[in-house]
C-alpha cells in the first residue's frame, strides 16, 4: 500500500534517534490513532537547523514522514523549515494512501512544535508560527452506513 520511497524511509529511517544538545524539541500526538512523534533540533546562531533527529511511535507512514521531514528541514533556516508542509513531505514520498494523510500532519506539527520550543527558549518570536496543538486530529470524513 505504500510507495517505494515510503518503504525506503521506513526501512532506513534518516535521522532517527535523539539529540543530546538539542535546543528545540517538539512532541505531538494524535489521540485518535494513538501515535506520537518527537523532533529534536540543533539550531545554530544563524537560525540554521544544523542537526535534527526524531523519535516516532506510529505506523509506517508516521515513521517515513518523520524521516523525510527531518531530511527536508536539515540545513534549512527556521523560516524555510516553517514552509515544509505535510503536502511537501507527502510529495517527497510519492504520496500516501488516503487514510494515512493525517500521519504526515504529525510531521508538520512536530516541526512547528520544535520550532516553538526553540523560540520560547531563545525568547524570540518566529513570524508566522502559531502555538502548535498538542493533539493533531484532522477530522476525517467517515461515512456511516
Amino acid at each position, binding site marked *: 500500500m505504500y510507495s517505494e520511497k515510503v518503504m525506503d524511509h*521506513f*526501512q532506513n529511517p534518516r535521522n532517527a534517534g535523539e539529540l543530546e544538545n538539542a535546543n528545540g524539541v517538539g*512532541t505531538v500526538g494524535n489521540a485518535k490513532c*494513538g501515535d506520537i512523534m*518527537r523532533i529534536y533540533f540543533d539550531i545554530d546562531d544563524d537560525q540554521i537547523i544544523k542537526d535534527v533527529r526524531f523519535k*516516532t511511535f506510529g505506523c*509506517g507512514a508516521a515513521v517515513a514522514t518523520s524521516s523525510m521531514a527531518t531530511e527536508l528541514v536539515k540545513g534549512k533556516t527556521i523560516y524555510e523549515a516553517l514552509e515544509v508542509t505535510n503536502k511537501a513531505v507527502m510529495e517527497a514520498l510519492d504520496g500516501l494512501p488516503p487514510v494515512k494523510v493525517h500521519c504526515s500532519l504529525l510531521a508538520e506539527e512536530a516541526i512547528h512544535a520544535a520550532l516553538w520550543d526553540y523560540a520560547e527558549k531563545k525568547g524570540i518570536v518566529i513570524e508566522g508560527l502559531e502555538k502548535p496543538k498538542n493533539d493533531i486530529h484532522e477530522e476525517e470524513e467517515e461515512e456511516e452506513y
Partner: protein
Amino acid sequence: MKKLIYLDNAATTQVSKEVVDEMLPYFTEEYGNASSVYEFGSKNKGAIEKAREVIGKALGSKANEIYFTAGGSESDNWAIKATADAYKEKGNHIITSKIEHHAVLHTCEYLEEQGFEVTYLDVDENGIIKLEELKKAIRPTTILISIMFANNEIGTIEPMKEIGELANQNNILFHTDAVQAFGQVPINVDEYHIDMLSASAHKLNGPKGIGFLYIRTGVKIRSYVHGGAQERKRRAGTENVPGIVGMSKAVEIAVSTIEERAKKETELRDYLINRVLKEVPYTRLNGHRTKRLPNNVNFSFQFVEGESLLIMLDMEGICGSSGSACTSGSLDPSHVLLAIGLPHEIAHGSLRLSLSEQTSKEDIDFVIETIKKIVEKLRNMSPLYED
C-alpha cells in the same frame, strides 16, 4: 525469494489441495442447476445433501439443520437480525459481549437503532465473559444470547457450556459465532445447548465466500436473503455447489485431524509464547493462557506500534496481523484489547500470530529472533521508550 511464513490463519487460510480437487468438477462438468428436474442437476443435489450430512455430523446435529450461506458475516447477520424479527413479540432484548466480531457487534448496533435493546457484557482481563453479569443481564424480554465460541483476536475460548445452560434454563435462544472455533476445537451443539451457530469455510482451509448457519429444529428464525426456494425456503440464491463441496471436504479433513493438529499447534504456540515472554521485555500475552485456540498467539509489545511491527515482519516474510483482520486499515485500537483492559497505546502494539498445521518449529524460531530484533529497533525509535 524469502520463505513465506504465513501466520495469519485466523484471518484466512490456504485452501488445501484436496479441497480444490473436490471442487473442480463442479465448475466445468457438474454445473447444472441443483434445483432442477433434470438428471444432470441431481449429482449436484446429492453433493449438497452429502455436505449437509458431513457438517451435521461434525456438530452432532441433523443434516437438515445446516443452512448454507456466503460466510461467517452473513451467518451472524442472519442469526441475529432474523431471530430478532421472528421473536420481537416475545421481547426486544439481546445479550452479547464486548469482544464479539464486528459481524455481531455492528449487527447488534443496527438492531439498537430499530428499537431493540442490547446488553454488551464485559469480559475479564483474559477475555472471558463474566457469567454473573450474564445472569444479571437476563430479563423477561431477553430473546437471544449471542456469545462467540472463541475470540478471533486473542483466541480466548468462552465458557460455552455454562452460557448454554443459562440460556436453556431461561428459555432464551443461544447463538454462537464459532467462525474461529469450528474445526479447531470439538463442538457438539447439544452438549452446549447451542441453537444457532455460525461458521465460515475459509477459516479451515476451505474456500472463501461460503459458510453455514446451524439452526436447531424448532427455532422460528426468518429468512434473511429472500427469494427462491433454496435451502428449504430459508436462504435464497442459486446454490454455490463448488463452495459447498469444498467446505464439506474441508470440514471432513478438519474433523478427522482435529486432535493431532491441536496437539501440534498447542505445543508450538506455547513454545512461542514462553520464549517471547521470557526474551522480550515489556511484553504481554493477550487472552487466556490455556483456554485459548490452539493456533492463536497475541502479544502486546509496549512502546511499539502495531503497523510498523507488521511491516517489518513482512519484510522478513512473516505475515501476521494487528487487531482483527477486517479492522486493519482502521485507526482505532482493537475493541477486544480495550475490553480486556489494555490502555490505548499498548493495545496499539499488539501482534496476532495464528499458526497452521504447516507451521514448523524452525519457522517459529525464526519468528522469535525476528521479533526480538524488530521490537528493539522500533523501541529505539520510540519516544515512549526511555531505556
